[in-house]
């Protein structure tokens, strides 16, 4: 029957000989039969050996100095050179660890005020998005279609026929403006729509604006 692997903290206690009988014997039997747990036990045992080899400090030694000595010992064991001196305070330890670990294994530690500010900013932006203030950027003018179509024989070929054709269309005309007669206007291209603010618009000169 396959048994479930024990919790790593229980294995750590087992390595430290802190598990009483009969659980100690059962764990020993499982470790002997389970390669994964056996490997974990060996890892914990090696770490225990390293830590036990750290020389004891004086009575007044602070936590930073103890951690620095442990780090030194671990670094020597792994054959790695630490860039910074081992007397650095505890706060810099994760940075050095990040330099030696892959990017996707790195953890980011932020000061609590910075993390709170980031969380508040995310909540604020989410609120803006939910309220509809944040929208995808879209162009002010969207030209959906603009084309020149060459008339064929079936289409009107004279202005008179064209006027008749327009009059027969169903499009409602509310306003008809007669352009000045006699003036011949030439086309410079396709019809174009722009906002006056975007077209360097200047009020026409020479005539009253009204």
């Amino acid at each position, binding site marked *: 029957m396959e048994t479930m692997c024990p919790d790593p903290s229980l294995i750590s206690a087992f390595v430290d000989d802190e598990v009483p009988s009969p659980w100690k014997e059962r764990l020993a039997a499982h470790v002997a039969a389970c390669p994964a747990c056996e490997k974990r036990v060996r890892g914990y045992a090696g770490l225990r050996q390293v830590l036990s080899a750290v020389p004891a400090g004086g009575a007044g030694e602070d936590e930073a100095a103890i951690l620095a000595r442990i780090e030194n010992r671990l670094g020597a064991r792994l054959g790695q050179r630490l860039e910074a001196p081992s007397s650095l305070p505890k706060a810099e330890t994760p940075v050095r660890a990040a330099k030696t670990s892959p990017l996707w294994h790195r953890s980011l530690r932020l000061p609590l005020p910075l993390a709170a500010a980031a969380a508040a900013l995310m909540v604020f932006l989410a609120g803006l998005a939910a309220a509809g203030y944040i929208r995808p950027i879209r162009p002010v003018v969207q030209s959906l279609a603009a084309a020149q179509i060459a*008339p064929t024989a079936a289409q009107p070929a004279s202005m008179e026929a064209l006027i008749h054709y327009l009059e027969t269309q169903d*499009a409602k005309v*509310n306003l008809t*403006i007669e*352009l000045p007669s006699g003036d011949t*206007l030439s086309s410079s291209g396709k019809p174009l*729509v*722009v906002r*006056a603010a975007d077209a360097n618009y200047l009020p*026409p000169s020479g005539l009253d604006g009204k």
Partner: protein
Amino acid sequence: VTVGRQLPFAFCAFLCICAAGLRAQESDIPPGLKDKALSVTIRAIVMGKADAVAWKANGTKATIPGIPVGVKLMGSNVAILVQLTPYEDAKGNLVLVTQSQVWVKRSDGELSYFTSLDTVNVRFGEVVLFFPLGRNADGGAAMRVEVTVDHYADPVLAGQGAAGK
């Protein structure tokens, strides 16, 4: 009854008929929608030499969002039909949809036909420029149509407001 006594009444009746005719367009808008009505102002400008205005004409039509205002500009060699449809969403944002047909008879007698469809996000009172004949490389144009969409002001209500002040 003399003719002289009838003249003032006839003149008043004539004025009333003229006033009713002037307000015929606004009466097309259902009374319940007049507060949603928009006025579309069209200003056609033909440019002359040195970018000076050679000719212009104005016109204003009232409509409601979603109902197009059709404008026809007829010249000796051009025929332009523009449908201007303003839309206003629940937040008051305004979108103007312009659909145009432009017919131009060139000097060689051939007809050119252009069509376009554009949407423009605009503010109330903002000027939108429509160049039915396109623009030159230097930005100039033989003709332009300035379009402005604004809230419709009922002349009767506006008159009452002015009288109350």
